[in-house]
């Protein structure tokens, strides 16, 4: 039987036969359905996913009319990271006029809320200049990154050190203290950028440090929308389930720990955000087919339930894409196509 060129979750090129790929797709779907307690893909969707994965061409795409809107995270760092130093106002023009981006994002190189606060006035000035040269909506973006508020980087005790010695209550209190500081800084930074002219704010890798961070972001979104009703807010998540580092934090009476993408998008909507970007993490040990099947199953469940647009995260280590520094175009294009056609995402 002819082998099909594909990849593993770490990007390694492998040759698999049709039955192996089919089996991996079915297992990936089943894993997602079981873990997240959502419906599996239909037989027709599985068949289409198989066609996408096994397409012999390097680059796979959608039919005209089925294109997705593109939003970005850490946009200013994309070119600088590969050794092309471009100042940020010009970088916005490159993405808008050269790459056809639908939405732009300005950000600080550190890309976390806490350090932006230190340089806020300069950062606002850079951002305002970027607005003059672009037509597409510009969000200002940052990761909440609540870890920066804990020792040794911040003032709060480190729950990662308290928990292993059984200090559960102290660890939970430390997390809520950090969440409070994060909330305050989000209000400061997001408010300053919006008042400088930003079309909105992009929260990236939300809940990376767990449920307490998610709580801080949701609470801030609610307050921001109260203060700035026309502010656009995009929430990019960090994982396919909310890590219960605290375990007992609730928002609007719902426990945040353990939420899967279809639950995350609804609570983000409740807080008042405009766009939600679900994340399904890639398992380096599994095949691309398995990872993509799992990602599409969970994302489809989120799309079906969401009222707001869903911009599925498709990039290094998420959305089925392998976890390697240079994301392979064969996988990125297949993930994007599957998210459009099967997961019914509104954007990426």
């Amino acid at each position, binding site marked *: 039987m002819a082998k099909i060129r594909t990849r593993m979750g770490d990007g390694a090129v492998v040759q698999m036969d049709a039955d192996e790929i089919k089996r991996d797709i079915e297992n990936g779907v089943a894993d997602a359905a079981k873990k997240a307690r959502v419906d599996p893909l239909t037989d027709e969707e599985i068949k289409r996913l198989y066609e996408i994965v096994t397409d012999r061409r390097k680059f796979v795409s959608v039919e005209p009319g089925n294109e997705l809107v593109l939003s970005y995270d850490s946009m200013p760092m994309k070119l600088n990271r590969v050794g092309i130093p471009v100042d940020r106002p010009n970088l916005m023009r490159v993405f808008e006029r050269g790459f056809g981006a639908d939405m732009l994002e300005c950000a600080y190189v550190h890309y976390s809320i806490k350090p932006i606060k230190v340089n806020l006035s300069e950062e606002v000035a850079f951002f305002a200049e970027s607005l003059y040269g672009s037509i597409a909506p510009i969000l200002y973006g940052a990761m909440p990154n609540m*870890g920066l508020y804990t020792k040794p980087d911040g003032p709060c005790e480190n729950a990662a050190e308290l928990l292993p010695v059984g200090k559960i209550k102290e660890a939970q209190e430390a997390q809520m203290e950090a969440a409070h500081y994060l909330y305050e800084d989000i209000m400061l930074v997001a408010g300053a950028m919006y008042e400088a002219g930003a079309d909105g704010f992009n929260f990236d890798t939300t809940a990376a440090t767990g449920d307490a961070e998610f709580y801080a972001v949701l609470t801030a979104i609610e307050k921001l929308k109260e203060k700035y009703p026309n502010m656009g807010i995009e929430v990019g998540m960090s994982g396919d389930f909310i*890590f219960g580092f605290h*375990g007992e934090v609730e928002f609007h009476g719902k426990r945040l*720990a353990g939420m899967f993408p279809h639950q995350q998008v609804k609570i983000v909507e409740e807080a008042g955000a405009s766009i939600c970007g679900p994340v399904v993490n890639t*398992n380096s040990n599994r095949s691309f087919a398995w990872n993509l099947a799992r990602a599409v199953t969970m994302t489809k469940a989120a799309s079906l339930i969401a009222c707001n647009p869903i911009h599925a995260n498709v990039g290094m280590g998420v959305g089925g894409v392998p976890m390697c520094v240079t994301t392979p175009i064969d996988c990125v294009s297949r993930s994007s196509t599957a998210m459009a056609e099967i997961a019914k995402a509104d954007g990426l």
Partner: protein
Amino acid sequence: MGKQELFQEAIDAILNCNKEEAVNIANRSILEGADPAEMLNMGFSAGIREMGELFGCGQVFLPQLILGAETMKAAATILEAELKKKGDVKKVGKMIFATVAGDVHDIGKGIVVSMLSTQGIDIIDLGRDVSIETIIKAAVDENADIIGTSALLTTTMVEQQKLEEALKARNLRGRFKTIIGGAPCTQRWADKIGADAYAEDAAEAVDKVIALLRV
């Protein structure tokens, strides 16, 4: 009370994170003449493994996992003391554990450390952002059996390769077993760099470390 019932009670005590109950069951099992090693393996350890699976499914969260580990330790202290009386206690092994230089992720490592410590393994956790020199020095000073490293970034996992090379360069490679973990790591990566083992999650780490100590 039958053996199986005792095992199930032990499992339930772990899953309910009930330290007091776990201690009662451990003491009661000794009085009833149960084998302490069996109680540890088939009872309490089985409970912590089940807790680990529930954690992996997102049905219990980190505080419960840690409480479960604390419950396990309380029971294990009693049963290991009994084993010592009988002369049955074997030192399982000593392990150095660190998140590699340039990497500050340690949540996963903390979970692995908690799980491993319930298995009678003496763990020295060096923390995060730890240089190769510090890891090797600690392993030599502590006369460790195993060196474990965690890396969560594609940019920091190369430190695991550098560790293997540094051990070879100092003629220390044969003295320690090595195990790696972290999201970008795979068995293929472990094979490529020459690590002795790779573990995908905490539950697998326990099995692999125990297997390495038996070799």
